[in-house]
């Protein structure tokens, strides 16, 4: 599987606590300090006027971060744009760690669920949303999860079977619990 453009979304644990406009200032602050490692942070874009849209977007050269509102479920979405090196598992590991780094930086503002999140293959050519690709992707995801989260057991399912949608894998921890993230993940 040749996919480079992976994305990951960690949902906010307490959605009503999200004050979307606060993230404009927060992300501008990140740019001022160039806070996110291995990323050139460029600009902030306010999409709060769009229903269930990208919310507040932090544009970086390597990938975009957003306090995303898709499906009405706020969460930290990271979508990789530039290639990373190594195997597909390496790519996914890098992407998970980048997203977790952002989640860590948001500690104090919001908490994220680690027991239920989405991994998306943002590349319809190399990863169409079908059973075959899902089967190919599953072991890659499992390996990457193990590298990042250790031996926690997860169930992986296809989020949607609509072939027009991207291939999105729902990652659910087998024993659900809400875990505040810690810096050890990043």
């Amino acid at each position, binding site marked *: 599987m040749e996919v480079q453009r992976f994305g990951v979304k960690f949902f906010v644990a307490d959605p009503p606590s999200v004050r979307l406009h606060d993230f404009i200032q927060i992300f501008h602050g990140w740019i001022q300090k160039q806070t996110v490692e291995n990323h*050139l942070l*460029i600009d902030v*874009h*306010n999409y709060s006027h*769009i229903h*269930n849209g990208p919310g507040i977007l932090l544009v970086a050269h390597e990938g975009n971060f957003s306090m995303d509102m898709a499906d009405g479920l706020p969460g930290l979405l990271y979508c990789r744009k530039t290639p990373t090196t190594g195997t597909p598992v390496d790519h996914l590991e890098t992407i998970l760690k980048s997203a977790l780094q952002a989640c860590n930086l948001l500690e104090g503002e919001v908490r994220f669920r680690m027991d239920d999140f989405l991994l998306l293959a943002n590349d319809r050519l190399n990863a169409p949303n079908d059973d075959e690709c899902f089967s190919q992707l599953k072991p890659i995801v499992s390996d990457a999860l193990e590298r990042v989260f250790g031996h926690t057991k997860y169930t992986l399912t296809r989020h949607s079977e609509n072939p027009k949608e991207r291939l999105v894998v729902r990652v659910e921890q087998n024993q659900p619990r809400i875990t505040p993230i810690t810096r050890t993940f990043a």
Partner: protein
Amino acid sequence: MPTWKEKLSITMEPQLVEEIDAFESQIALRRSGKLDEKIFAETRLRRGVYGQRYDNGHRNDGVRTQELNFSSDLTKGPDTLWDAPGMQRIKIPFGGVTPDQMDTLADLAEEYSDSVLHVTTRQDFQLHYVHIDDTPNLMRRLAAVGITTREACGNSVRNVTACPLAGVCHGEVFDVTPYARATAKFLLGHPDAQGFGRKFKIAFSGCRERACGLVNMHDMGGIAVTRTENGMEKRGFELYVGGGLGAVPHDAKLFEPFLPEEELLPTAQAVARVFARLGEKKNRAAARIKFLVAKLGIEEFRRLVLEERKTMVPDPRWTGYLPEVAEFKENPLKEPVPLNGQRPEGFEKWYSTNVYRQKQAGYAVATITLPLGDLTSSQMRQLADLARSFTGDNVRTTVEQNIVLRWVSEADLPELYRELVRMGLGEPGAGTIVDVTACPGTDTCKLGIASSRGLAAEIRTRLAAKLFTLDEAVKNLHIKISGCFNSCGQHHISDLGFYGTSRTIGNRKVPHFQVVLGGKWEDNAGAYGLAIGTVPSKSIPEVIERITGRYVRDRNGNETFQEFIKRIGKQELRGMLENLMQVPAYEKDRSFYSDWGDPREFTIGDLGMGECAGEVVSAAQFDLADAERLVFEGQLHLDSGDYAQADALAYRAMIQAALSLVKTQFQSVRNDSDTVVSEFRARFYDTNILGDRYAGNKFAQYLFRRHDSPPHEHTLDHARRIVEEAQLFIEAVYACHDSLTERGSAPISIKAVGKP
């Protein structure tokens, strides 16, 4: 796994395959340093690949200017870094899109952009934050569904626009859709349309009365007309040329009251040839066709085009499409059934503003109100499915940055509305005062001065809550906002228009908007508004409250907004806004010193602020204020019909503004106009000091032209133009003065006492 190139090669037209492959090669050439950056820049622009803000590698973060250290120094144009994200413009002739095309657009926004599609004021789509290396595949995927980005930007024929109601409108003479499509197809890549000095925009309208086509503000535009010949009705166009907004709006001139349909394409070709041959090439500020038409006069321009027409070798394409015109019709998906049954909550309000009953009984056009012209990939995909369920291929974008579904069986409207609400697209207010149009402004545009989208969002939020309690006369006004004087937000043709500018208060920059009142959206952009004054961005919502409130209170019967503005007069209107023009001290209210939706302290560039020990107002600023006063008085004389005096005052205003700058270097300069112009030219124009920010040299030419060639007769057109030009020239001088002050090279200043 095949690449997109391989996968799509069988579904694309061979010509498109070739073009996109060629572009990919040019990317490779540029990457290897074998293609000059300027040539590559124009090449990519002609493929719709545009630069975006901060692509020069600098960005002020509110505290300091950061260098954006991309890993590569490679450029994709002068001062434009390769790796900086850019914008992809996608042409949609007459705004017509199919559900399959919508699906593809949604996919591309997700995979290459930020999952948002932006509808422009010329019926295009734009994707932002796109990497140039992704553009060939993006183009291939578009080409596979019959869309080209060719000539979406650059000095070329841009998207051909048309009324979104064409074919279903009660007032139209005939459906202009097939003519718009034929024109777009004929001129795309046409050899005679490649040598322009600037872009060339074409629009079609089905009638004179409604606004949708906006022919009056286009380089070339056709309004549908018919006449009877030998007892037969014959189709043709009232053809206009030389209109345009930009910094100084020009009314299009009537080229031909009845151009027979078979002459449309050859005449367009002849116009293109004359424009390519005689249009300005070196001075981009005067390179649009409007300047050529103004310079030659419409009679001479017409003569040249008709002469050219005679020399042209007949092309079968000129009339080859006409049999298709006769057969052209759209196929509704459902039978026409009148509105009936239960209506969901909110439906009546939505119906009152967003539904247009077609001339075909039982069918309606439903407008999808897009906030700031934006929708997500997910919404686009769902909208495509709705079109498949309700209307088939009959979807169009609009110049008001919305999307319309045509040929909806009226009985389906309640169900359609339910679905739109579910998708978050059920907002009412299409075409009302809430439906604010804005260009990208400082969000993504390199030229943006103030946040047009931020202001638009704020106005929408404030007005949406009370839309249905607003007086009817106010409810249907238009608000249009541009981030700078270049008019992409079409502020000139709006009842309440605004364009972004900046002022320096106590050595800090404050975002402002010039208030432009009384433009006319109706009658194909029937009138342009004039500037009233510059107001801090944060006070603009109050400007709207005051002006509309006064309109509601004091209008005479059915007096239109334009009539009201004219009757009240600009002097009084300015008086109404006078206290809103004030900016509180930074220490008192810092909110004025940042823009809407952007917490950074406002800046117009990467230069740092000078230290300030107090409120300092330079002599030049006083002189400039005087120049502003003169031009305002010129506007008043213009309104009263005293064109000679309007011209004289506008000219004096320019001389005064020029003098203000000259005096910063040569305090004892004589103030006769010859000396001022000569000194100004030598010190600020020839040295490019004026021109280093906001294309100031372009505006200097307004002064030189008026100084060298006073008008032989005083007409409305001339006087209006000179007043507009004076306003812009003063803006340029302000910008130059601010720039010099920042650099510490505007030495003569006086300390003001007790100034706010």
